[in-house]
């Protein structure tokens, strides 16, 4: 008997878990860097607003 369907199922589980293990930290790193980039751009925008106010008051 070949039991090929069991072999396919087992290898599919192995491939799926390894794929998740590969992708999960990459998604996390991308999310973290995106958040840092967003904070940096907001700070830059806030600093620009402060500069405009200073110019107007003179």
């Amino acid at each position, binding site marked *: *008997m*070949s*039991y*090929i369907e*069991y*072999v396919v*199922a*087992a*290898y599919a*589980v*192995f491939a799926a*878990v*390894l794929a*998740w*293990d*590969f992708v*999960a*930290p*990459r998604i*996390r*790193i*991308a999310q*973290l*860097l995106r*958040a*840092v*980039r967003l904070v*940096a751009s907001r700070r830059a925008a806030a600093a620009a607003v402060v500069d405009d106010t200073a110019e107007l008051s003179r």
Partner: protein
Amino acid sequence: MNPVLRWFHQLGSPPVFDRFARRWAPWAFGLGLLTMAVGLYGALFVVPADYQQGDSFRILYIHVPSAWMSLAVFGAMAIYAAIAMVWRIKLCEILAMACAPIGAAFTVVTLATGSIWGRPMWGTWWDWDPRLTTELILLFLYLGVIGLYGAIEDKRTAARAAGLLAIVGVVLLPVIRYSVVWWDSLHQGQTIRVFGESSIDGSMLWPLLWMVVGTKFWFVGSLLARARADNLRREAGKDWVRALVAPSGARA
């Protein structure tokens, strides 16, 4: 100072570790994939079918390396946790906690492939056999470490608490290893020996060795990637992380 020792000390610096992990994780993943590809080719297309189990024995080539990794990763996690606890090395806390999801993944593969293999060979998906039960407890320990680390807000305190669980959990490893010797078990006994002659035929052994090496490389790649993610999360407010996302240095 000895250059190797100096390099090791420098690696404890978060930006240095980030550069190291970013550089070497893809190599480790690549080597892991390449090595496992050779092993899987041998396992699926070269090795002959077993005279009793037919093709179902080919599950061995993913089940056994995953089972070994589920134990080895827990051991590595406990060693990192012990070093972090004694010397307060932050990087070792990060590495210990990065081990948990990888070990849990290998344990899930072990339990799932064992169950799939057990159905045609034993006639059941699951049995409360000592080996299967202790491996399931190992999965719960991994989940406990992940849960504890996630539940406490201060990550240094969280890593210490979860690390303690990892260190205590090490007592389970010899129980899993010798469960088939100490108790009557539905699970087969040891057929592959590092020291001494294995009872598996030599023609069936070589893909297993490739898979064992491949999963080790994969673990290194995954450990570096996950540790890098945790390192970035802890250091998110620092200048070196902001420099990473600056237009000239943006890299994921």
